C-alpha cells in the first residue's frame, strides 16, 4: 500500500520544480497547491504572483480562488489587473508560469476552452483567462494535470495557449520534460506506476527517456505540510 495518494505525489513532484528565490505566476487549483507547498518547504523565498494583482502573496491558508482576501492581505504589493499583465507578466519579470489544463498535446499546447468544435462544442470549458500570455511571457512553463487519454491528446481541440515555453509537465503518473523544439518525453514514473500504464494514458505514441527513473518518494515532511494546507483550503480569511 502507498502511503500517499496519486494527487499528493503529483503535487509534491510539481512543488520540487520550483526553486527558492524564483518568481512564479500561479494558476488556481493544483498549481496553487504545489506552489504553496514549495514555499512552505524547500523554497521559502519563492515569490507567488496571482493574476488578481497580488504580488508576493504569502497565504497562511490555501486560497479557493485567485482573488481570496488572504492573498491580498499577505501580498507585498497589490496592483490592478492591467498592471499585472502589462508591467509584471508581459515585461518578462516572472521566471515560471505554473498552469493547469483540460487538454495538452505532445508539444505542450494547452486547451482550456472547448471539447469538440468551437462553434458547436461538446463541452464548453471556462476559457483562457491569463493562460495565453502566461505561457508566452514567463521564462518557462510548468503544467500540472491529471493524466488520461482525455487530457493527454494527440491534438488539442482548441489551442488556448502555445507550448513553446512549456518545459515540464507533471501528472499523477509521472514527470515529462519537453525537449527543445520537440515533444514531451517521459523522464520519471511515480512509485508503483509502470511505463506501460503511462503509455496507455497517453493519446499519442509516447517517447520514453533511455534513463527513465522513479520519482523520489514524498518525504514525511512534504506530506505533512501538504495535508495541513489542504485542510485549510478555502477557509475564509477574516475581513
Amino acid at each position, binding site marked *: 500500500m502507498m502511503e500517499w495518494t496519486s494527487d499528493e505525489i503529483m503535487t509534491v513532484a510539481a512543488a520540487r520544480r520550483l526553486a527558492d528565490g524564483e518568481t512564479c505566476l500561479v494558476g488556481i487549483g493544483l498549481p496553487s497547491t504545489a506552489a504553496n507547498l514549495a514555499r512552505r518547504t524547500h523554497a521559502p523565498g519563492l515569490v507567488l504572483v496571482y493574476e488578481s494583482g497580488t504580488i508576493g502573496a504569502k497565504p497562511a491558508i490555501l486560497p*479557493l480562488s485567485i482573488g481570496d482576501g488572504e492573498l*491580498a492581505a499577505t501580498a507585498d504589493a497589490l496592483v490592478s489587473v492591467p498592471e499585472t*499583465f502589462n508591467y509584471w507578466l508581459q515585461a518578462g519579470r516572472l521566471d515560471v508560469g505554473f498552469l493547469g489544463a483540460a487538454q495538452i498535446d505532445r508539444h505542450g499546447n494547452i486547451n482550456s476552452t472547448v471539447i469538440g468544435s468551437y462553434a458547436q462544442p461538446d463541452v464548453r470549458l471556462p476559457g483562457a483567462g491569463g493562460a495565453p500570455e502566461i505561457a508566452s511571457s514567463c521564462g518557462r512553463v510548468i503544467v500540472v494535470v491529471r493524466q488520461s487519454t482525455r487530457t493527454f491528446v494527440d491534438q488539442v481541440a482548441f*489551442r*488556448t495557449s502555445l507550448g513553446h515555453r512549456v518545459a515540464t509537465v507533471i501528472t499523477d503518473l509521472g514527470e515529462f520534460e519537453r525537449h527543445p523544439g520537440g515533444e514531451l518525453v517521459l523522464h520519471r514514473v511515480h512509485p508503483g506506476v509502470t511505463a506501460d500504464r503511462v503509455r496507455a494514458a497517453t493519446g499519442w505514441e509516447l517517447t520514453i527517456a533511455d534513463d527513465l527513473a522513479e520519482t523520489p518518494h514524498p518525504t514525511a515532511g512534504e506530506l505533512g505540510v501538504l495535508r495541513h494546507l489542504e485542510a485549510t483550503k*478555502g477557509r*475564509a480569511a477574516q475581513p
Partner: protein
Amino acid sequence: MSGLMGSLAEAVACTVRDGDTVALEGFTHLIPYAAGHEIIRQERRDLTLVRMTPDILYDQMIGMGMAAKLVFSWGGNPGVGSLHRFRDAVQNGWPRPLELEEHSHAGMANRYVAGAGRLPFAVLRGYAGTDLPANTKNIDTIRCPFTGEELTAVAALRPDVAFVHAQQADRDGNVQFWGISGVQKEAVLSADRAVVTVEEVVDHLEPRPGAVVLPAWVLTAVVAVPGGAAPSYAQGYSARDNGFYQAWDAISRDRDRFTAWMRENVLGTVRKG
C-alpha cells in the same frame, strides 16, 4: 444625476436599457451582485454582458435569459469548476442562444485601458499562437512604427454602462475602494454611465494605502448597498462566502432547481437601499 441616489432600483431604471452593453466588474473581490440582481428583477433584455471573469452573477443573468452576447476572458466558478448555466446556453441555447466574444485576460484588460483613455485600440504582446484570433473579432496585428515589430492590437471596450461595488462613498458621492482592485477603475472610466454601490457612506474618505478613488463627477449614481457584494466580499467589511460558491455547482446544474432558486432568492426579494 451625479451624487448619492435614493435606491438601487432607481439607479438601474435610469441607467440600463434593453440592448445595452453592460459591464459589471469585480475580480473575485467587490463583485456587484446586488446591482446585477436588480437588473434581473427589472427584466432587462438583449444585453451584451462584458466582464473579464463572468462567474456566478453572470451565470445567473445568462440563465435568466437576459444576455444576447457575452464578452469575456474566463467563464468559470473560481476554484470550483465550470458554470452550468453558461455551459447550457452555449451548448444547448437554453434559455436562449448566447453569442460569444472571447479574449484573454491581458486582451480584455488592455481593451478597458484603451476605452478609459478614449483610444480606438490598445497594443500588447498577446494571443501568440492561440486559436483565439481566428474565432474572435476585435483582435488584429499592428506593426510598430519605430521598431517594425509585429504586435497584437485589441479594440477598445466602451460599455454603455458599468457597475462596480466599493467600500465607501462620502456624502458628495466620491468613492474609495481598496484591496484587490481588478479592472474596476478602467471599467468605470471606459463606460458612458457608471453606477457604484457602496458598503457604507462616511463623512470623510480617509486615505488608505493603494486605494482607488473615483471622484463623484465621473459617476452617474452612487447607492449605499451594505453587503452588496455577497457572496463575493468587501475587504474590511465581509469575507468571501466560499461555501456558497461550492454550493452553486449543484444548484446551477439543473434548470428547474436553478429557476426555483432564482425565484426564491432574487426575484422574490426587494433590495433596500
